[in-house]
């Protein structure tokens, strides 16, 4: 898989993450919702960075889907936090897979995205009461 294809995969994951935050944000209480808003803004910034990069590579940028199938219903805050952890783990996995395929600024983009996903997943696990809140190799499937 080429670097552009890996970046396109990452873009699809960022689109899906932004959609998921739109759903789960509605189920969070006032204290938690600000963390989710910060996370969503970070995913939007990463999405924009990937789109700029793909344009520079003259590679196709997959658009966002109108809707995404969620792994489970999101009726309450506990489910919303589970979805948040899952979204961050999935994005971490996609970015980790990109790392061997990209170099230079793209490697930096990918590793920073992986780091940010791991930190957000840990924060979400902490709020959800998941112990331990960390995993040894973020992004490794």
């Amino acid at each position, binding site marked *: 898989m080429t670097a552009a294809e890996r970046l396109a995969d990452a873009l699809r994951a960022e689109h899906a993450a932004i959609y998921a935050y739109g759903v789960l944000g509605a189920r969070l209480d006032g204290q938690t919702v600000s963390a989710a808003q910060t996370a969503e803004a970070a995913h939007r910034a990463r999405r924009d960075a990937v789109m700029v990069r793909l344009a520079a590579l003259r590679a196709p940028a997959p658009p966002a889907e109108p809707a995404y199938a969620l792994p489970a219903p999101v009726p309450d805050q506990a489910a919303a936090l589970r979805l948040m952890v899952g979204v961050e783990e999935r994005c971490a996995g996609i970015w*980790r897979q990109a*790392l061997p395929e990209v170099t230079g600024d793209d490697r930096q983009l990918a590793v920073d995205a992986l780091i940010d996903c791991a930190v957000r997943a840990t924060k979400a696990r902490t709020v959800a009461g998941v112990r331990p809140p960390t995993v040894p190799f973020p992004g490794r499937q």
Partner: protein
Amino acid sequence: MVLTMAVRIGEERRRPSRRTVLRAALGSAAGAVSLAACDGPRSEAQQLPAPDPLNPFYHDTAALLGRYDAAIATQPALAERLGPIRDAHRTHLEALAREIGPGLDTAAATSPGPGPGEPSSLAALSAAEQAASAAAREACLRAPSYRAALLGSIAAARASHVAALS
């Protein structure tokens, strides 16, 4: 063409010594006879592998693990919180040892851990994790492609430890 491919694959996986490259060049330029002529037992014995660039990173990881061992030994109340992080560093150390393979510099691995005066408060450990995450990120950016995912995950794990310690 085949020879060029072989050397390039060698660069990717092992970074060949200058002698390996020279032998490959001699082989292509002068044929198998001259290659055989400089391939005696003496030149084989001199062909030591270059030190693996991950060795310092491995030893820094061992030192970080040592800080957690010391912190848990002196503050057992923190064991439940620090234990999983300590275990992650041990898992990283084992993965790095496997990655480095025979090039692992075990002589330096016996260096003592942090002294008894090394601060082991949560704030001190958090600062150490922050620095260690930055070091792993730099190592990931410099690494050959086949090591990028491992080092990237270690950078991410260390950053997540900062979040878990706060």
